[in-house]
Structures are given as C-alpha cells and as structure tokens.
C-alpha cells in the first residue's frame, strides 16, 4: 500500500528546527509532491525540547492524501535530531525502529540544566545514546553538525538538511535541495556552505573532536636545572605516577616556585608508593589552593589576552573582571599573627570590609586595573608566610596524615581519601560548603576504616556529596553508613 515518507524533527527551542521543516516542505512541494507539517510549539519554543512532524507523498492524479498530524511509534522513516540527547529522546519515544528508520543526528551536546547544576560531573553519558541508536535504527548518520555549522557561519539546520540530502532518503536531487535554500532567501550563502558540509559528512563523517588531553613529554628535562632536578627525582617514583607527577609539578611550580615543587614531591613520597599516582594528582590540587594571589596571577599572565581574543573571535577592546574580595581573603594575605589579631577585632574587620571589600569591577585592559592585580600577584613570594597558607597546611597535613595511616593496610581506601580533595572547590560560601562536606566524608571514613568495603563506601559518599549543593544526597548516604555501623556496634 502506498504510504507517505514520514519525517520527525527533534530540536531544542531556538535551534531553528522550524526553518528545517519549512525547507523540507518547500522542497517536496517544488518537486511536485504534497506535504504537510505540524509542530507543537507554544512555550516549548523557549529552550525546551520541541518536535516537528512532516509527511510528504508523490502526487497521484489530483487525489488528496490524508496525512497524520503526529508521529506514530513504528511509523517514522526519517528522524532528524538537532542535538545528541534529543536523538536519545526520539529513540525513547519509539520514533526510531530498526525496520525503517534512518536516524540523522548531530553529536554535539547542549547540556540540560539538570546536567549543569550538579556540583560534580552531571553530564549524561553520550555513549549510551550511541548504543541505543545502533540498536534502534535501520541506518544511523551522526557527526558534530554544530561544529560544521559554525565553520560554515550558519546554523545546525543547514547541515542537517545537507545530511538529509546525503542519505538519499528523500528522492530529490541535490540541486533541488539547494534551490530550496536559495528560494527561501534567508542567510543563503551560509546555509549553502553548511548544507555542503552536511552532505559531505554523510559519506565521510568528520573525526570526532573530543577534549584534547594535554600532551606532556613525561619527565624529560626542560633545560632549567633546578626544575630538571625535580623531574629527575620524580622519575624515581613508581612509573604509573610519572605522567601525573609531571603535570603536578608543572602546576605547583607554576603556582609558586621550584622549592614548592620539592615540597610537593616530599608530600607525594610521604603517602607511599602504593597510591603515588592518585597522590600526585590531588596533592597538586590541594597545594595550589585558590587564593587571591593565584587569581591575580592567572588574570595577569601573558597568555590570557591572546586566549580571550581567540575565544571572543573578534577584537577585544576592554576586559572587565567581576571580583568580590572579602575580608577573609584579605586577612589571609597577612602573616598569621597580624591576620588573627585583626580577626579578633570585629569592628575593625567591619570597617576594613567597608573600605576594601565588596563587588569590584576591574578593567584589566587598563594600566591601572592591571597594576592592581599585578601587585597582588606579586605577593606570591611571601605566600608561604600568610595566614591562608598556614590554615591550608593544617588541613592538608591532617588529610595526608589520615591517608598515611591507612596507606599500608588499605591502599584503596587511601586512594579514596586522597580523591576527597575533589570536594573542595569554589570560593567563599561554596568553598566553605565543600570543606564541610570534605570533613564529613573524612570523619565517616575514619569510622569505616578496617571494613573491606571502606574504600567503596568513601567513594559512594563522595559521589553523593557531588550530586547536589546542599548535601542532601550526602545526608542520606551518611544515614545509611550510620545505620550499618551502629548495627555492628550493637551486635
């Protein structure tokens, strides 16, 4: 029985799904076919998942087809997804079936709020969509069409339209597709470029561009003798840790100086060879804590300006920083004695707060603004004599102590304790909350010590702590731990 070609388009509001649908309809009609499109817009247009549906059929002697206004599971020939998770959604909705559906999808990601708001890594597993797409589709065409669109100076719809042409799923020639774009008359040149890239992509999908790992040549000397001595020392550590040590050394020496790098190696060595790689990673992060000196240094380093120029893809005239120094941070720059003496005088603190703290907009492209941060960055030399440093090292020492205590008996647990450093991030209140979560997980770890599943539980607690801001998941996980620990005590 004659049936129409059915096409579902899944997009995110604002992606231009409607443009693509209009092109498909216009294409079919200019080729003498009949077409119907429907959409479910409304408020869904505002960044939400949106679905469009098109049916086209070859005209048959003046007869009028009865089109369906909605996609039916098991009945869709072509599914076009303008984003990777939307491809997953199409599969979930039953629109992609192995007997008939060609799935054309862009592999780029537009993260949903739920993925972005997790304090840890809440990003959905793209591989799961690949697996499902392979299982559910008859044919599967996927590549990063957003990147191609950017290259073409166009939007993802034009690349998708090209990919649709490339699959040959619609019996229309390339010229007809291109004429449709031209006739629509909006952003024609960019769209045609995007179209061509999409079309070529079907035959030869461009390679996947993932995050590029920073390539470091292990521990090879760099020609700076004091630093090379550190690298040579690091080379005596277990081989598995070499790459991480190279990275860690680069980080802490850049943060402070070569002597600090030496202290770093001492600390890594101190926790023992069984967890050297993990130690190399997290001790580097802990020692390079985020203080105002570091922020000022990062904001004034020579590489920054070219990077911003590149990222902004245009000539940058002014750069305004959004800073909010607080008294804690300023006092942290003083020596422990002076800092704590001022801390004990709340009225003085309040006065200084009014003078020096609060929201500041600093123009680092101007000489004066740059100088302010430049001077702060210049305090690096006396960092190890500051109150902040003293406090950080009290915590770091306690943490490494806890690691050292279990390193021999339970290396897995030691590694997990090291990884708890991941909980400490952010600034001000976020940082305080991180410290609190860190302390709670470490305390629980202390109680879990000696159990065969201690490492496993610490990992679970940490994952829970990274799920939400308030620590609700952590609370729940800690209650579970309490329950079984108390049971044991009772028994």
């Amino acid at each position, binding site marked *: 029985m004659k049936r129409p070609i059915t096409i579902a388009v899944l997009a995110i509001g*604002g992606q231009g799904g409607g443009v693509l649908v209009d092109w498909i309809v216009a294409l079919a009609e200019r080729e003498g076919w009949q077409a119907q499109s429907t959409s479910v817009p*409304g408020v869904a247009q505002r960044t939400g998942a949106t679905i469009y549906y098109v049916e086209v059929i070859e005209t048959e002697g003046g007869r009028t087809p009865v089109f369906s206004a909605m996609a039916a599971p098991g009945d869709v020939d072509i599914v076009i997804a303008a984003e990777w998770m939307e491809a997953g959604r199409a599969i979930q909705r039953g629109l992609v079936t192995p007997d008939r559906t060609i799935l054309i999808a862009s592999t780029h990601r537009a993260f949903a709020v739920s993925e972005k708001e997790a*304090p840890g890594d809440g990003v959905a597993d793209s591989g799961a969509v690949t697996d499902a797409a392979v299982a559910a589709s008859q044919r599967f065409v996927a590549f990063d069409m957003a990147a191609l669109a950017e290259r073409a100076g166009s939007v993802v719809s034009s690349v998708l339209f090209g990919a649709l042409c490339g699959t040959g799923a619609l019996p229309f020639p390339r010229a007809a597709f291109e004429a449709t774009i031209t006739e629509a008359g909006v952003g024609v040149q960019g769209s045609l470029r995007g179209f061509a890239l999409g079309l070529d992509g079907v035959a030869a999908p461009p390679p996947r561009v993932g995050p590029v790992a*920073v390539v470091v040549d292990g521990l090879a000397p760099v020609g700076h003798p004091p630093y090379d001595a550190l690298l040579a020392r690091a080379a005596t550590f277990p081989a598995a840790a070499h790459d991480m040590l190279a990275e860690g050394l680069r980080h802490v020496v850049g943060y402070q100086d070569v002597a600090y790098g030496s202290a770093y190696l001492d600390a890594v060595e101190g926790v023992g060879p069984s967890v050297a790689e993990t130690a190399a990673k997290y001790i580097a992060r802990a020692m390079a804590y985020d203080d105002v000196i570091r922020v000022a240094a*990062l904001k004034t380093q020579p590489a920054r300006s070219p990077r911003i120029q590149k990222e902004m893809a245009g000539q940058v005239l002014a750069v305004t920083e*959004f800073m909010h120094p607080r008294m804690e941070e300023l006092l942290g720059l003083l020596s422990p004695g002076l800092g704590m003496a001022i801390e004990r005088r709340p009225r003085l603190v309040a006065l200084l707060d009014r003078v020096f703290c609060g929201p500041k907009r600093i123009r680092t492209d101007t000489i004066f603004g740059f100088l302010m941060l430049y001077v702060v960055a210049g305090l690096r030399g006396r960092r190890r004599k500051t109150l902040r440093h003293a406090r950080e090292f009290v915590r770091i020492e306690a943490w490494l102590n806890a690691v050292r205590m279990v390193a021999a008996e339970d290396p897995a647990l030691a590694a997990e304790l090291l990884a708890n450093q991941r909980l400490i991030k952010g600034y001000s209140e976020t940082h305080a909350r991180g410290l609190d979560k860190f302390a709670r997980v470490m305390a629980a770890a202390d109680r879990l010590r000696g159990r065969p599943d201690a490492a496993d539980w610490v990992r679970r607690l940490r994952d829970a702590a990274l799920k939400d801001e308030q620590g609700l998941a952590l609370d729940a996980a800690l209650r579970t731990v309490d329950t079984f620990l108390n049971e044991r005590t009772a028994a």
Partner: protein
Amino acid sequence: MAERSFAREVQQLRLGAGAEFRGEGILAITKALLENGVGYVAGYQGAPISHLMDVLADASDILSELGVHFESSANEATAAATLATSMMYPIRGAVTFKSTAGTNVASDALSNLSSSGVVGGAMIVLGEDYGEGSSIMQERSHAFAMKSQIWLLDPRPNLPSIVAMVEHGFALSEASSTPVMLEVRIRACHVHGSFVTKDNRPPPFTLTQAREMPVRDTSRIVLPPASYAQEKDKIARRWPAAVDYIQRHGLNEFFDGDVPEVGIILQGGMYNGVMRALMRMGLADIWGNTRVPLYVLNVTYPLVDPEIVRFCTGKRAVLVVEEGQPDFIEQSLSKTLREAELPVRLLGKRVLPMAGEYTVAVLEEGVRGFFATVGVAVELTPRANAAAILDEEPVRALASVVPARPPGFCTGCPERPIFSAMKLVEKELGRHHIAADIGCHLFSILPPFNVGATTMGYGLGPASASALNGGTGKRTIAFLGDGGFWHNGLNSSIGNAVYNKSDSVTVIVDNHYSAATGGQDLLSSRASTRRRSTNNSIARAVKGVGAGWVRQIDRTYDVARMRATLRDALTTAVRGPKVIVASSECMLNRQRREKPLLAAAAKAGKRVVRPRFGVDQDVCTGDHACMRLSGCPSLSLKHTGEKLRDDPVAVVDNSCVGCGHCGEVANAAVLCPSFYRADIVENPGWVDRVLGRIRGAVIGALQRRRAARHWMPA
C-alpha cells in the same frame, strides 16, 4: 512588535477567486474570515492561536482596505464582549482566544451573548490547547458550548475543511441566531496545507452604518422577563433551526466502507488520527478510502439525531471517538440510540482512554480493542509499533541518561536575574510562600530556581496568596507578569491587595511585551506604534489604584539591587502591599530589534561595541554554583582534558548576548572571580587603536618583568 512577522505571508490574504493558498492553518482561517465578509475581529493572544492575532496585526492594511475593524483585546472577556455588535446589527464578527483558559475568562460575556442571540454571524475561534504541547490545565471546550448553547464546530484538520467550516459557521450562526465556536486543535493551528481561495468580501452592512443608525431592542437584553423568553427561544426556535441547517448543508460527513456491520462516529478533529490508525490496521489508504464506515462530526454540538439513527441503523456496533472527558457525546449518543430503540452496541471510552490525548497509537489500540470486543471478521495488519525495540536493553538504559528538557528562560532573559535574586534572598531570610502566575516567569518553578508554589490563572498570582496575607510573621511573595497585570491583575491582584490592606509583596515582571505568547505589544510596551497607545506606566497604574510602597527597577540584571529591593520589601515596617516593578526588555525581542541594526552599522564601517562574557578556565573550580543561580543556555560546561581535574568547568558559549547576568550573580552571590566581560569592537576608531597600543606596551613590559623573576614551566 510580535516575535514572528507574517508580513510576507499576509500578502496571500489578497488572493482572489480560484487561486491556491499555501500556509499555516491559522492564516487560512484569517483568509476565510475575509472571504466571508467579516466586519470586525478581536481577540487575545495565547498558544495555539497567538499567530492568528499576529497575522491580523500584520494584515492591518488589508483589513482597513476592506473596512474590517481589528482590535487586540485587553483579555478574552473583552474579546467576547466585542461580539455584542453582532447581537444588534447584521454584521459578522469573529473573536479568538485559547481554550479553555480564555473561554473561562470570556464566559460571562459568552453567556450573555448566547442568551440574547445574534443577528449577524458571531464566531469564536478557539485554539484548543489540549494534549502534547499544551501549557494549561486539561479541560474541554465542549462543556462551555453545552452550558451556554453555543454551537461547536470541530472541522477535519485540513485547510479546505477548516475554511469551509468558517463559511458555514457564519451562516449557521445567522440561521439559528446563535454564536458558534470554531474549535481548532494545537496541531491544526500550525498545520501546513493549501486550499483554493475566493474573493474577499467587504462587510455588506458596515460598522459606520451601525453607528449612524443605532438599534435598541429590550427583548435582546438579558433582564427579566426577556431572559426567560430567551431561554425558551434557544430550545424552541434556535436549536431546531441549527439542526436543520446542519442537515441541509451536510456539515457532518458520511464515509462509506465495505464492512457495514460496524462504524465509527468521530469528532472532525480526530479524523486524520483515526484514518492513520485504520491505515496502520490495513483498513484504509492514504487517499482517504476506508473499509469501516465513518460518520464525521464536523459539528459536535448540537448532535443531529436523525443522522445518528441513519448511520447506526443496520450496524452491530459503533465506536465513538471523543477526545477528553467527560464523555458528553457518548452519553448523548446512548440516549439517542435508546430512544430510537436501535439494537446497536455503542463503545467509546470502554476501549479508548477516558482522559488524555488521542494519539495515533492510542486510537489504533482503541479501534483494535473495538474490533476484538465486537468480533468483526476482518483481517487486520499486525501492529507496527515500537514495543519490541523499546524493550531492548540499550534503549531501556536511556531512561537514566536522557535528561528532561523543559522550556526555560532564553539566553539573556531579563527575568532570570529576578529569580536569582529571589533565590539569594531566600538564602538569607528563609523560605517564603511564593505564588507564581502565567507567563515566561513561570519557568522559575523549574530547576535551577525552584521558586513558586502555585499558579491559579492569568493575573491571579498575587490574588492566589490572599488568604495568607493577614497577620504577622513572614510575608508572601507573588509574581505577576506585565501581560497578566494588564489582562486583569491590576484589579484582581493589586486593587484587591490595596483594598484588603494585604501585607504582601508583589513583583511585577515587566519585559515590555506579552512575551510568552509571542511578544505582542501591551499598554506598557515601550515602542510607539501607529495603531495602539503604548508607554503607559505600570508603576503609575499601581499607584493609581492606591498602592503606597512601589519600587521601579529599570535594569533587572542588577542582581544586587534586585536582591536589596526584595529584602527591603520583605522586612520593611511599612504595612500594606509592597509592589516591585522589575523592568527590562525581553531579550528575544531586543535581539530581534537590535541585531540587524548593529550588523548594518558594522557593515557601514561604524564603530560597534558588543559585550560578551567569558570564564577563565583556570580560575573556575568546576563547582557549578553559577549554574545553580542561572540556568542560562549559553552558560555551559566543558571537560578540559586536564589530568589534574575531574569535573567539567563552566564555559560561556558563543550564543552569549552579553546581558551580564553571570558576572552580576557571581558578584552579588560572591561566587567566584572567574567571569569577565569582553567588549568586542568592530571598526575601532583611532582612539581605540592608540590607547590599545599604549596599554599593550605597558602591560607587556610588566609581564616581561615578572616572567624574568618568576620562572614557570611551559
């Protein structure tokens, strides 16, 4: 200016007899109104008929040429009241709004209109917002038709059928002195199709004639004793006249089939879905041929008993396809068949779900259930559904992977900072009862803001917190959009709070447009337009009804000020309603307005500066606190690939419009120093170049000095 311009499409409204019109259902309805000599049109925007209002606004010139009056009504009640002209004068009028939200608001006027009856055709075009994509509570318009006795047209969802029903609708209205409702579902409103046009007809009796020769007839006014007579007239004269018209002109359609022992009675709007379900079962083809006889109700109220009896006679069983609940049609059919003493089984909601949208899959299940129940000896094509693949492990695994993606604030939306501030204030002062309203600002109820406990209807946010507004302790906070404010909120919410000395806080979110419905202008819009009066201040109106504590904020992006004002409103010793008017232009509209101008200026060689935000990747610690106070689509994540990092960092992508929210919120909430604003210049002037060179030289020298003293590994 509305979000979407139909300036190009409306040219089709000029098409003459015999031409082919191609376009959206909404535009086809507009064309049909003009072909049928409509004298005036009014309405209130709202999905799915927003575009109808936009089309009419863009077609103002064509309407003027024909002498057709068009108004953007203050609300649906105003729109419905507009039809009073057809009550007294032989002038056809049409109004439009979404249903059932709009019909609720309009029902006072609709009841009066239908009681009085009409002399000129009166048509209410209802955008039936039911099923997927709907933004309102799920109810049926059918009940309104029944309670007020307004005829309900539910045409098959294709352009020729819809257009024909506009023509018949006016005639039916005039033949029976009764207003009619033309019900168009979401997808039909946006369906793309074609039909053959006729010439436009100017109204034969003009509005000027009506003004010059006013008519008064007390029998048409709803007051005793006329109102009693009107009710009797509905039954004695208008109803039979309507049934007669429907039958004579064959508004309902019969489709024969070669399985005559059964049949399906369906709402016109369900036709395409039912046909596709039958096609999937091998009982119909794409060209509209069906093996199962169909009786299609293009008029679902009133029902035509003789037609029902004719269709059902000789059948063993009949299926009723009626979307939504209660099952008014099925109940009515039962009575008709019983009275006619026909031995036919009637199945409807027994094999189809009582509630929810009738998708093709649902309809197919229902028809198969019907065939199985009554035992029809016809071979059916096996189900072609997706059940098998949905059951496979890789597909099932998606359930925990694919994130929900509800609609949210657009990039740069001026409402986002209001709710960031709200969230920050709640961190200081604890949780409050927060009443939400209808509009884009309702997205606040979703993550990451999670602000708002109720929505009770348009303009009713503050009203919905009324009972909580006595006594002492925490104050309630209510949100109200500029759309809801002018719709009825000025009176229902603000006036009410003033009069009752309510000790409450109201935030009026003023984005200069009726933004959620597509950016239509309002009384307080800032643009000056030729045909409307704009620039009427909300703050002045609020003060005008007696509110004392009123604060106007003209840049919502100032999160710190927004927070301070909210804090002040919640803690001030002043009793009575506290009203904050938070105004900044809808970014979607602003971009649409400004982008082409800036592009043109840049092209012409003028100096153009445009802000964009960025994140210093090294400074960002990947805690995502900014996301939890923003949710901006352009504020995204990036895995850096650095060995020392586990979590992705924040990144601002190139869709950033430079609104500044991320920087402001990082500042106000003391989050982190990662954000910076870059002002990007095109066609820099000589001052820019010279200053840039000097600064670059000094900064470069300083950097070289430091590099010489602090060795860093590459």
